[in-house]
């Protein structure tokens, strides 16, 4: 009984019918043990959440109203912040990106501004959602195939055929790597304390952004949005300062270029020469 898994005091308040529908397909989906009724930990990241929201629009993904989707997502994040749910940074970075996308869709492009158009960004988002959905469907089809050991079976009493092998011993690469990794792990000092961070640096945010949406190719005034979603209002000033410092550091390293057209104008960012050269290599350092 799904209702019983919610906090008792909430059960009578919410009919929870849509919730049941939502959680039914996967038990792992987020029921928070703490005081929260529901969190988004059950979603496999922000794209998953977006896909779920998009499905509720009940239209083909290629005809999706991106703007409506963005509104929904941002409204969701706002609510989460209001009731002080701690959201993973992934979700906040996505919110920042979507807020930026929204501004691009609503405000006509300035002549001076050579960033990606709202349409291009919307297309990127739609493509990613469609691709993820396609993989979901493929996974479903795959797992519903006839499977060895469930629907069809191998010879139950195999005899030995002396297949030629170079070695009389067997081991897989997985066995080998597993042995090595656990050996080294055992001997490594395992006490590590991870300091708690309250403010995400811009560099952190950028890394997540890269994973979420691919590289921001061109001049983008994203930082305003990143700060808005990644910090609490009370911390915004200090976050702004440290994020700006982080930005300058990245500029110094050649990873980033920045531009501002006038006092109090948005700060534009784009990838620097250094980052472009190491583009492929960066992929692996998540």
């Amino acid at each position: 009984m799904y209702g019983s898994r919610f906090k008792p005091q909430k059960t009578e308040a919410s009919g929870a019918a849509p919730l049941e529908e939502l959680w039914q397909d996967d038990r792992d989906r987020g029921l928070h043990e703490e005081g929260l009724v529901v969190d988004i930990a059950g979603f496999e990241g922000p794209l998953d959440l977006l896909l779920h929201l998009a499905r509720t629009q009940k239209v083909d993904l290629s005809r999706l109203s991106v703007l409506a989707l963005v509104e929904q997502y941002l409204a969701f994040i706002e609510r989460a912040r209001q009731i002080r749910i701690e959201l993973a940074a992934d979700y906040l970075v996505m919110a920042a990106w979507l807020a930026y996308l929204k501004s691009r869709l609503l405000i006509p492009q300035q002549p001076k501004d050579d960033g990606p158009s709202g349409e291009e960004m919307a297309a990127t988002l739609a493509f990613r959602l469609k691709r993820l959905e396609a993989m979901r469907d493929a996974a479903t089809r795959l797992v519903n195939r006839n499977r060895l050991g469930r629907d069809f079976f191998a010879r139950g009493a195999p005899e030995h055929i002396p297949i030629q092998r170079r070695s009389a011993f067997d081991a897989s690469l997985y066995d080998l790597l597993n042995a090595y990794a656990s050996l080294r792990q055992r001997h490594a000092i395992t006490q590590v304390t991870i300091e708690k961070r309250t403010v995400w640096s811009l560099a952190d945010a950028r890394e997540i952004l890269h994973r979420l949406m691919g590289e921001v190719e061109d001049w983008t005034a994203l930082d305003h949005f990143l700060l808005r979603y990644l910090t609490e209002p009370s911390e915004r000033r200090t976050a702004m300062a440290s994020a700006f410092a982080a930005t300058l550091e990245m500029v110094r390293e050649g990873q980033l270029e920045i531009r501002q057209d006038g006092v109090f104008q948005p700060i534009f960012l784009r990838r620097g020469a250094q980052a472009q050269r190491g583009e492929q290599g960066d992929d692996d350092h998540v």
Partner: protein
Amino acid sequence: MSEVDGPQDAAPAADEVATVVDPRRLHEAARIAEALVFASAGPVPEGYIADRLPAGVDVGHVMRQLRALYAGRGVNLVQVADHWAFRTAPDLSFVVRSDEGEVRKLSRAALEVLSIIAYHQPVTRAEIEDIRGVQTSKGTLDVLLEAGWVRFRGRRRTPGRPVTFGTTKDFLDHFGLEELRDLPGLEELKGAGLLSGRIPSNFQIPLPLGEDELADDEDPITQMDLEELGLLTPGGKEDE
């Protein structure tokens, strides 16, 4: 050890012989192939079978004949990559039960990663994460590697040389696939450009509709809808 050295003298004429080969010799070849594949629980390499057939017999021909012979039977001959195996007919799963445990249950995440690897291989971890928009949690790839369905394939020839992943023969065997081309929907996905890292040129760019314009089959989003979505139930309390 391959002890089939002796009859190799017959090899030169092999090609012409194949078509006019003595039917008794063909029958003998089929029996040998049958015995070899029947004996093994796992798929047997075609080359291994070929080495053990009488000289001048085309292994592909023999195997195709055998496959046809077993096609309607309770046990079928199936091809897995360049290997052969006997498997019970899937429609008989209702009577045949295995004494061994259930098939491995995969989490939603693991299944998703498995299909991304299957359809996009060779694929790097960064690319998997790019498609899913989320970091791969510890243990997801691990489970697939341990199950023997996924393997390290090699390294991409790009700066940083990231490791690439691919599926194994056991993967094909488990899901009853003869080859990767048999993955369900592969061609359509490829055609739609959904197996690429880039937006395909024919990708339909959704019209960024203004708030007032709605597609014919679209309803406006209302405040109600948001609540119905139930992502946040009213009255949730903070946890700290």
